[in-house]
């Protein structure tokens, strides 16, 4: 057990040196490391948001809303389809999870069914190589037809919406001028936004939180919202509340917009030249400009409504045709809200509202304090353990301390190479590893003492100490590894960082105890001049 072949010695020294080399960049600042020649290792530990400072937001998509939106679209698709086929229908509406329509003339039912079947879109399924349909068209009773989104269709919708939400959120966050934001989909309907070094979450939330669906609508020429509410809302029209709440009243608008935000190419915050109020000026693309131009030309003197997220921002009267494709929106904006809205309009509308379900923000000063505290804890903890080990085991204690230092170096090197993130609990894991790593040495040394007392010679006692302690060390470390793996599997962010350092610490501990310590001990034995080696402990 104490004899090392030459290649093993070389391998052990090489691994330790590699550890030192790869851990080294962490001792220098980012700028210094960037200046190093390209052949040198440059990867540094990635710090978690809790150490670096930054914002962490977990957003949840509103899948119910998504389904509802789709049903509304389906309902108008059904209406359009049946009108085009010139089929008379009644009772078109959303019933439960689908759209139902009745065909009064029994002769038309089959024709209507065929017409509605055309709405079905097959969805490719790359994995199964088979396609499923996004909606199902079924007949119910003698005269009713139900058009219903399929489960797969809904899932596809959610996936698509998540994808485009991630893109939109990324565009918006990028507009804030942040560096390296991490925006990813998490699970079925969640989006994780992490912005290192940015702690103005209110700004972040203001920019992300709005759907920013901008639409321009015709106002009903004769009936007001009040009248419509008392009698009935005309077909194709809908009552929209004002952005200013109760006081702003409400408007009766045509539900289908004239133009929507999808046709915008640019939006910039600015000030109204006369009133000096904050406004947003925008520009349409060609098709938007054409639609808007045609509409304004035909409706001079008539009000139209600018609607944001189903609330009316303003309803100005068209004074002259707007043919250039650009215009401005006024509302009760502040400089900041105009700025935010411009960002949102530029980066496009979100497919559905995003709700913040979790927020964790750490300011940069607290992060710096945490790093400082963590470093102090590592240093003091290591010193205390080192002092104790040297006190209790003398020279062999020094070997243990060397092993622990190499252990820490290897953990840091491995983390730098793997690109895993160091969090504050991760630092706690390092400190804990220092305390627990020397356990391997304590087990070996105490065993050696026992063997010495049993009357063995120094060499055979040392030999027996390493051999007999091996199984125990393996068993006791593997149980901790089980706990660490469970934490990694189930934990989030910081806890996962702890699990990483703890697991790496366990591997490093087993490695150093059986290579580094053993090598040092065998070198010590080899260095003894006399044949009869004195008891080392």
């Amino acid at each position, binding site marked *: 057990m104490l004899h090392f072949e030459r290649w093993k010695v070389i391998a052990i020294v090489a691994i330790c040196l590699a550890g030192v080399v790869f851990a080294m960049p962490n001792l220098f600042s980012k700028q210094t490391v960037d200046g190093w020649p390209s052949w040198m290792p440059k990867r540094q530990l990635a710090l978690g948001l809790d150490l670096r400072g930054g914002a962490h937001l977990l957003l*949840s998509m509103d899948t119910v809303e998504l389904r509802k939106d789709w049903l509304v679209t389906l309902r108008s698709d059904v209406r359009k389809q049946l009108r085009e086929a010139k089929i008379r229908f009644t009772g078109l509406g959303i019933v439960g999870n689908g759209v139902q329509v009745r065909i009064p003339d029994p002769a038309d039912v089959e024709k209507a069914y065929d017409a509605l079947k055309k709405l079905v879109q097959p969805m490719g399924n790359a994995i199964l190589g088979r396609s499923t349909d996004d909606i199902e068209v079924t007949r119910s009773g003698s005269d009713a037809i139900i058009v219903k989104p399929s489960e797969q269709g809904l899932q596809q919708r959610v996936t698509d919406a998540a994808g485009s939400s991630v893109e939109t959120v990324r565009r918006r966050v990028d507009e804030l001028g942040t560096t390296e934001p991490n925006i990813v989909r998490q699970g079925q309907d969640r989006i994780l936004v992490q912005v290192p070094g940015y702690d103005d979450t*209110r700004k972040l939330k203001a920019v992300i939180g709005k759907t920013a669906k901008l639409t321009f609508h015709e106002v009903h020429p004769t009936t007001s919202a009040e009248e419509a509410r008392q009698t009935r809302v005309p077909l194709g029209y809908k009552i929209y509340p004002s952005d200013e709440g109760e006081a702003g009243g409400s408007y009766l608008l045509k539900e289908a917009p004239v133009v929507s935000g999808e046709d915008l190419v640019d939006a910039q915050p600015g000030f109204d030249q006369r009133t000096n109020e904050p406004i947003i000026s925008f520009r349409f693309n060609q098709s938007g400009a054409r639609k808007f131009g045609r509409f304004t030309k035909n409706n001079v003197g008539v009000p139209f409504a600018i609607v944001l997220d189903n609330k009316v921002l303003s309803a100005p009267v068209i004074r002259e045709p707007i043919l250039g494709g650009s215009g401005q929106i006024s509302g009760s904006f502040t400089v900041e809200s105009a700025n935010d809205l411009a960002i949102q309009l530029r980066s496009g509308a979100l497919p559905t509202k995003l709700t*913040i*379900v*979790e*927020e*964790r*923000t750490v300011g940069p*000063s*607290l992060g710096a304090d*945490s790093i400082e*505290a963590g470093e*102090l*804890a590592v240093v*003091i*903890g*290591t010193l*205390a*353990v080192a002092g*104790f080990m040297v*006190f*209790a085991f*003398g*020279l062999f204690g020094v070997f243990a301390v060397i092993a622990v230092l190499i252990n820490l170096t290897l953990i840091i090197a491995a983390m730098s190479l793997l690109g895993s993130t160091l969090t*504050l*609990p991760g630092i*706690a894991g390092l*400190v*804990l590893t*220092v*305390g*627990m790593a*020397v*356990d391997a040495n*304590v*087990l070996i040394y*105490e065993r050696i003492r026992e063997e010495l*007392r049993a009357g063995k010679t120094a060499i055979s006692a040392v030999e027996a100490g390493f*051999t*007999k302690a091996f*199984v*125990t060390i393996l*068993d*006791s470390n593997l*149980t*901790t590894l*089980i*706990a660490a793996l*469970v*934490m990694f*599997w*189930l*934990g*989030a962010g910081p*806890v996962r960082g*702890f*699990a990483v350092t*703890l697991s790496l610490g366990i591997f490093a501990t087993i490695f150093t105890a059986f290579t580094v310590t053993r090598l040092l001990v065998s070198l010590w034995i080899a260095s003894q001049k006399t044949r009869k080696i004195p008891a*080392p*402990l």
Partner: protein
Amino acid sequence: MFKGVDFFPHGTKFPIMQMRGYFVTASAIAALAAIVLLATQGLNFGIDFKGGSLFEIQTKTGTVDVADLRAKLGDLGLGEVQIQELDLPTDALIRIEEQQGGETAQQQAASKVQDALGENIEIRRVEVVGPTVSGELQQAGVIAVTVAVIGILLYIWFRFEWQFGVAAILALVHDIIITMGVFSLLGFDFGLTEVAALLTLAGYSINDSVVVFDRIRENLRRYKKMPLEELLNLSINETLSRTILTSTTTFLAVLALYVFGTEVIRGFSFAMLFGIVIGTWSSIFVASPFLLWIGVKRDWTGAVGKANPAAGKA
């Protein structure tokens, strides 16, 4: 050469097993008290599990005026507002309970607090956890502890015998329950990092028990005729110095964490500190008595190659 100070007495013959009745009774009382506390008072769940919001603040000038803060925040109508002073007189922690009205309500409340705090206060940390996420985290915490305990049980069963596994798990559950009881007693916040501490404690406590068990297994092979009680006592005494030394080094390291660490890991390091003490206690005084009661297989000669190939070689 300097051999170090072998300060811990060796060859001790403490009658630990003979006095097991006292130790186990003490542990049983503590565990029972912990269960009663957990049942009546419960744990003071942090926002990870309960939802709500938390703000760590620092004044830019002067010190924190808790009464003033309480008055300002109390007027917002956000339910219970807790203000906790931290180590520095400029620092404090504000907790707002979960608001009725779902995810958006939490955000609105957090925003109100930020407005009310004013210019002189820097908000250094904000955590807002809504009802969905807190429910999920609760579930994850329970699953994590259960899976870890079962995983450890299976491992010990595989490496030793089922009797060892059961004794180790009983000691482990004892440690976890008493630690949670202390959290309940002191009203400390119990969140995700504290669950991580419990899991680590589980690993650590088993680690200690395994060392004793390994020795028991070794002695079972060596002294085939020795009565079990005597054999267990011998094993505990033989490993006592190691148990104490290791607990000391780990304790020292975690103490550094407790003293110098920030508020975020205060609860974590406290749980670990306490856990080391209780874990050491249970591996000396609790695990082995359990093993005696359950009984172990005495004939290990045939099982050497199968159950423990590495030890067989030695």
